[in-house]
Every structure is written in C-alpha cells, then in structure tokens.
C-alpha cells in the first residue's frame, strides 16, 4: 500500500493573484504530494465540494484580498456540511496577506495554521507532514 498525501490548493474569493498559490503547489509537489489546484475565484462551497470529491488530506487556501475573516471560516463551515461531521479529518491551512491580529480569530474558527509572508516553503511542508489528521 502506497499512501499518497493529497492537497487542495485553493483560491477563495475575488483576488486574482496566484503566484503564491503556484509556488506552494510546486513545493508540495516536490515533497512528493499530489496537489489539486482549484484555479482562481472559487467560492467556499466550491472548495469544500472539491475537497470531498478529491478526498484530500489538506486544504491550503491562499488569500490576499483581505476577506480572510469572512471566507476562511465559511470554508471550514462548508467542509463540515459536505462531510456531514464537525470532526474534520482534513487539515485546513491558510497563507497570504493575513495580519497577525487576525490569526487567533481564524484559529478559533477552524483554521489549523496560518502562514504569513516570508515563511519558508520547507517549514510549511514539514508542518503539513507532522499534522495530518488521518
């Protein structure tokens, strides 16, 4: 049996900048993971549906629009609805331009970790490997 780690790299909301998302997708790929990239401008409902159908271990959202406090809790909520449980077996990560004072709020709302600008991709990959939920 060869268990592969699968990651959905998601771009929720209206910002059109996905260089960061592509860099992190590439880093997950180079770490031997299978990465599904959602493409730009996805709704939380769409990302949750993708996460279920692709049966991913990780949902990593990149967001630079400033709407993270609205969109990311909604992603978590939709994931719970799609999966039919409050106990998610998916690791939810966020990255992008997210002020430190918002991190606590996001963590209270189901985001497992937030990675700001300047985080090394190696750190993100290591964190991911160490914190998988299944």
């Amino acid at each position, binding site marked *: 049996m060869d268990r*592969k780690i699968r990651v959905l790299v998601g771009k929720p909301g209206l910002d059109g900048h996905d260089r960061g998302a592509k860099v992190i997708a590439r880093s997950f*790929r180079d*770490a031997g993971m299978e990465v599904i*990239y959602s493409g730009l401008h996805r709704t939380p409902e769409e990302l949750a549906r*993708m996460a279920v*159908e692709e*049966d991913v271990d990780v949902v990593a959202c990149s967001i630079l629009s400033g709407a993270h406090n609205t969109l990311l809790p909604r992603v978590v909520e939709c994931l719970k609805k799609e999966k039919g449980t409050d106990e998610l077996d998916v690791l939810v990560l966020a990255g992008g331009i997210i002020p430190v004072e918002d991190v606590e709020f996001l963590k209270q709302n189901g985001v497992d970790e937030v990675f700001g600008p300047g985080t090394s991709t190696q750190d993100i990959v290591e964190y991911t490997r160490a914190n998988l939920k299944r």
Partner: protein
Amino acid sequence: MYLHNQVIQGLRDRKRAALARAVTLVEDGSEHAQHILEEAYRLKGRSKIIGITGSPGVGKSTLVDSLIEAIRERGDSVGVIAVDPSSPFTGGAILGDRVRVRSRTTDDGVFFRSLASRGYLGGLSRNTGDVITLFDAFGFDYVLVETVGTGQSEVDIMRYAHSVLVVMAPGLGDDIQAIKAGILEIGDVFCVNKADRPDADRDVAVLEAMLGLNKDWQWRPPVVKTVASQGKGVPELLDKIDEHLGFLKQGNLLEERVSRSYLAALEANLRRQTVEHVLSKSRSDGSLDCALKQLSEGKTYPAALARQLVEKYLCSGV
C-alpha cells in the same frame, strides 16, 4: 464496522464522500480495496464510458468542461476522471484540470476526480480501470475519462472506454502524422478543437482523407469541429458519441468492448501480482542479488535470468 463496509454502504446510499474514499483506497492499493471492488463489480453496468485523449494543449480539459454542460443540459448525470502525470523524481504531481473545468463544481449531478498517473505510462494510472468501475457502480449516466496529454502510443484508454474521443487542434502536424500508427487508430470519434483557428478546415480535410483510405469501416469515425471554450459544436459532438454507442449496442459490440476491459484489468493485475511475487521471493532468498552480480560480471543476460526466475518461482509445483 470495517472501513470497507462503511464505504460499501456509502456507495449503495450514493454518498459522494464514500465514492471519493473508495477511489483513494483503490488508488493506494489498500487492503480494503478488494472488498469494495467486489461490491462495485456487482453494482456496475449502467454507465456510458467515454475516453477523451489527445496531445497536451489541444483543449481536452476545456472540452470536458463543455461536455459536462451538454450532458447536464439533457438532464443526465456525469462522473469525470481526469489523469495528469506524476513527477518521475519525487512522485508528486500537480493536477490542474480543475483550473479549466470551472462550471458546475457544486452541481449534485456531477462528480469530478483528479488522478495522478503514479509512474504508469499508458496515459492513465495503474488502477484507472478499477476507478472507472467504482464510478459505474455509483450509477452515473456518463463517465468521462480524460487521459494525460498523450503522445503517439498511450492507447490504454481504448481498453476501458466504450467510446474513444481523440481530440486534436489545428496546426499540430501534417498528413504523415495522420497515417502513423497509434493514437489515431483508436478514435471512435475525432474532434478538431479550436476550430476558430485558420488551419482547422485543412486539418479536418487531412483527417477525413486518412479515414477515407479505409473502405470497409463497420463504423466510420466522424470528425467534428468544436470551439470548446465557447461550447460551440459540443452538443453535436455528444450526439456523435451517442450514435457510436448506439452502433455498438445494435451490433452487440458493446459486450465485446466490455469483455476487452475485463481482459485488460485481469492482465494488469496478473502482471503486477506475478512481478511482485517473483521479485519479493528472489529478494528474500538472495537470488536477486546473485542474479544482479552475474549480470554485472557479464556471465548472462537479463532475458535469460528472468526466465530462470520465472521457472523457479512460478512453475514449481505445477
């Protein structure tokens, strides 16, 4: 309750999370997979299975997007399996088909799954045949299987699909490409996509000429022009695919294709199991190391050694 029982119950109840998990277990080669597949083989037999193949960049994913639309317009349900390549170095992959397949993501009549080829070279992943069976068991009206961008010889899809759609784009080759063996021989329906480009009509003519060389077709593959990004020509394309499926049914040729897919699945499993058996036996009793040493000393050659190992581990007791 065992994991596989949970998944099987979920498949019967048509829960999409259960189908998703079943695909993962089959792709990973989990011990739960065989129980799930046993049940899936009992449930299957309803879906029309369409293979979609062609070179990288001809617009396969965009065409899948508009085919989903056309199928849903008719009220039928559709499952999509999209295969992209794995890195030969890290085993990782970027599965990018969702970037193009943008509409109907949350439509309950659509299920989309991306697979990585995981080192398998036929244009699919090693277990795509079994994944198709899972989708069929779930009961979609159509199952679309999009291969990795293919070159000229990745023709595995013909073993599993009822109908194979070969997608091309203008300007990618002259008429010598069209008479080569391989991918052009497996099409049941051809599609020249990006047909708003200037060379499209010329390419259609070249294809038609190639197909015209054969005079005794049972089924003469039609050539359809599409502009997938605008949905143009796509309902007509779906009609042609349905026509082909109707032709197969009428001539009792569908069973032939289905039994071909059983043979392919059996063959793939036999290969894997025998190779794994011989390798693990010869590794554990040291004869693999011994064989490699003989090879490096130039005392024998690989084919002869392989025969010896097969005789030793597979023919004993027969």
